[in-house]
């Protein structure tokens, strides 16, 4: 057995993972450098085994639970903010759509007036009558749908315990 072979086994022998073979023992008995290395490895092994880890501070568990509550509160806040922004965006879209529809209704009135004027000129009845109820009904439906979605989402965001009551 050479010094290199012994050096490869020193840590395993010092840790007790490998029993020293007769050849290993014979070499260590004859080679002072390998014997010193084995002794050094045993001291390192003992020093590592004696390493003491500091215990967690007494308030550690309380701090962890407080941090978890804080993280949950921050998460809930973010969800709330995102929900409110989504509602705001929804209302804005509905408002823009409503204004567009109402504008469309005035445009359509102008068009209908034109068609009526043409029909009068020919002494024929107009194919359409002036009726602004369709855009108004559509606008009302859109508002109703938007409020319906908001009400449903609000109910879903309530805590489970409250809903169970």
């Amino acid at each position, binding site marked *: 057995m050479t010094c290199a072979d012994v050096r490869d086994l*020193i840590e395993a022998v010092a840790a007790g993972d490998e029993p020293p073979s007769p050849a290993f023992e014979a070499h260590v008995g004859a080679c002072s450098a390998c014997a010193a290395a084995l002794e050094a490895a045993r*001291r390192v092994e003992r020093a590592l085994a004696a390493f003491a880890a500091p215990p967690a501070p007494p308030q550690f568990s309380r701090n962890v639970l407080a941090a978890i509550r804080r993280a949950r509160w921050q998460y809930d806040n973010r969800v709330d903010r995102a929900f409110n922004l989504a509602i705001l965006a929804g209302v804005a879209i509905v408002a823009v759509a409503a204004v567009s529809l109402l504008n469309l209704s005035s445009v359509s009135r102008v068009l209908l007036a034109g068609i009526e004027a043409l029909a009068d000129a020919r002494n024929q009845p107009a194919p359409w009558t002036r009726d602004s109820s369709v855009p108004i009904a559509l606008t009302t439906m859109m508002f109703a749908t938007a409020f319906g979605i908001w009400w449903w989402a609000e109910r879903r965001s309530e805590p489970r315990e409250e809903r169970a009551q």
Partner: protein
Amino acid sequence: MDESDEQALLERCRGGQDEAAFGELVERYKDLVYGMVHRLSRDRSQVDDLAQDVFLKVHRGLPYFRGEAKLSTWIYRIVFNVCSQERSRTRPVELPLDPGDGRPPIDPGRLDAAFGDFELRDRLERAMAELPDNYRFLVAAHYLKGVDYKALAEALDIPIGTVKTHLHRAKRLLRERLTS
């Protein structure tokens, strides 16, 4: 705590609403986590925050923990990841093996027992700070908290033989650094 108790505790924790259950889990593992983080982190002033971060990750991950590995094994893995991230973020703290005060390199085999052990531990700690992350984790977990080879192999997802080889290499590095 036996396996069925641990399983019951896990079930209570998974709901997310039982704070007392998670408190029990923290109590059970706090010393292990804190001790390992203390040995693995580069910046000792960060130990409290890092150990807390480990438990926040455990809390977030519990609903997805399938229980294929032991809870402790999963926690070791989280400790390793959190500390590896911290080590990659922070610059290494200068802990020279040779403090530059004229003291000669030590020979761990020839030290006076009382003073020598103290001196050896001091320098060993410096030497450990320079080990690669996975070696450092293995040494800290195995010697600090008696984590056995099997649990270490599962935590790092490597064979037991590799765990032993890496530990022997780590200790050889320590010995060589102390005696060079």
